[in-house]
């Protein structure tokens, strides 16, 4: 009898089970970086993330500001445009490169050294956009002349990201090499080139 009274009732057991299962039934939880800054830090894939883009951009801006090219700029604000960032890697990073392009444009505007023609304006010209796509980072004289004539651009920036990727049984390492170069529209002379390296690794 005593043993019977000491045993938890079925209702109590069901309640206990429901409480135990409750956390498992709740949906995903969300965080805000403004409140939890550490959520921006970890690398979640071998692709380029916001932190990689910021680091690459900071390095580019730093090298560009100290370059002979910027020191020797003629008076007034010469026109400049960023044409493209080509993805020559084994990662689907086109979205990240679009972000990098826009962020680089922002930096150029904020430097107050150039008159910046935004990439969207140039790519709206379908004929020119196709010529630029075909040319990749090797823009020919005619296309360069068209850029100067139609958009008042004296310099253009083209970027290309290469990678060296290796895989073993337990590791996949992607070494990105981001090249950014500034070219003179009139002479097609390379005025400045920067290389920024970013390495990401996936451990199995």
């Amino acid at each position, binding site marked *: 009898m005593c043993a019977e009274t000491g045993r938890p009732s079925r209702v109590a057991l069901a309640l206990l089970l429901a409480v135990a299962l409750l956390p498992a039934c709740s949906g995903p939880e969300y965080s805000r970086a403004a409140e939890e800054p550490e959520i921006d830090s970890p690398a979640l894939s071998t692709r380029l993330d916001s932190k990689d883009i910021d680091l690459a951009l900071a390095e580019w801006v730093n090298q560009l500001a100290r370059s002979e090219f910027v020191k020797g700029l003629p008076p007034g604000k010469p026109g400049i445009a960023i044409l493209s960032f080509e993805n020559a890697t084994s990662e689907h990073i086109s979205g990240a490169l679009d972000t990098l392009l826009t962020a680089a444009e922002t930096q150029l505007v904020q430097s107050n050294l150039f008159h910046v023609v935004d990439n969207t304006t140039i790519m709206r010209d379908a004929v020119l956009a196709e010529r630029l796509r075909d040319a990749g980072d090797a823009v020919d004289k005619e296309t360069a002349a068209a850029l100067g004539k139609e958009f008042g651009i004296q310099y253009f920036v083209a970027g290309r990201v290469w990678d060296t990727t290796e895989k073993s049984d337990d590791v996949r390492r992607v070494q990105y090499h981001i090249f950014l170069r500034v070219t003179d529209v009139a002479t097609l002379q390379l005025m400045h080139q920067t290389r920024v390296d970013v390495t990401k690794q996936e451990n*199995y």
Partner: protein
Amino acid sequence: MRAALLGLLLTAGCYAPANVRAEPYQRAFYRGHPDRAADMLQQRLDEEGSSPDRDVLRLELASALVAAGRDADASALLVDADDELETLDYTRAPLDTLAEWVFAREPKPYRATRFERLLVNAQALLGFLVEGQAQEAAVEARRARVLLLQSGLPDDERYASVLIWALAGVALQHAGARGEADDAFRSARELCHDDPARLSALDALQSPPAAGQGSLLVVVQNGRAPVRAQAIVRLWVDHALRRVQFPALVARPGGYARIEVEVDDALAGVPVPLLDVGAQALRRYDDELPRLLAAALVAAVPRAFASDAVARAIRHDDDHHHDTTRDVLADLAGFLTGELLAEALPADTRCWTLLPAEFRVLRVPLLPGAHRVDVTLQDSALGAPPRRVEWQVDLRQGELAVIDCVTAVEEGWADVQAPGEQDLTHTLAGQQALELLHAAD
């Protein structure tokens, strides 16, 4: 008497050959409804989002989407799958790892073979090419290259694929990465020396369109790849019979022997087979078999203990003296226990079933403008009537139009018979399995 009874039991207990279990989406796919198959798969994924089958269902869905002409959806899905898909290398993984994954008591998340992993990139590459997304196709080409050149693997264990190198070459060339493209074509060429038909196909694949022309690439995914099916094998290990289930690879009939491409009612060419998925998978399976058998035995050890324990418990019951009938009954009980446990613990036979058996490829120059392209399919291995699949192509100068034709849809459903029960003790694979097992002790 004991031997006779055991012999009788083995004969009676022999696994009756049956058909490999078919999923409704597979029947829909092969009966000409890849879109319906895609809907069924999507519904299952929606309902069983966190199921251990999720990754393999996504691969199946990608194939259904490709066959339904939804290449953009398929490529996006394959990119996601590639990020999350884990690989299990049947030829190199330690036996206990294989035992843990292939012979698990509870269903585990799907782990793809290295070959399937490579085909994830190949199919995504193809999908991006069909969609005209050259840069994304080039990314997949590079991802495939990383797998093809995977460090840490001896040369003879790497997958050498003319098709994947060649498609990578086309994608990289189209994306403007000419140096990388040349390297890829060189690698493809090295794999098919002494094969004039394939070398000639590679020449055509590497030729960019001449001035004022475009070009047409036709990829035909023909037939159906082998699938894994439950098989039961017997092996004598240390004078005891062990009966285990394991995932046998079974070839499936299907595919058209004669495939031609016509452009505007004129013969444009005959696609050349560049990858025999079926033959490559079956060859690889021969290498895998001893390890799979050994892993099956590793996984079977607890079951063997159970059946031996039952036999021992009956034979050595203290209440009885030695009795031949009792010994026979003990063997019988032990055998039946092992039998029940073998039936109750099947091996993992999940695989990417909607893959083709082979890929055939043709690239021809084409003048800019609107064209009708027909792929004609004749001499079906399943007796399906000849078919003509039509596409409309509007080609611009310098462009590459890509057609991806999956022949298995509409060729009809065909049952596949599972392999019968076999005693592999005296086969080469069985002996190698036993050596592996002893080496692992």
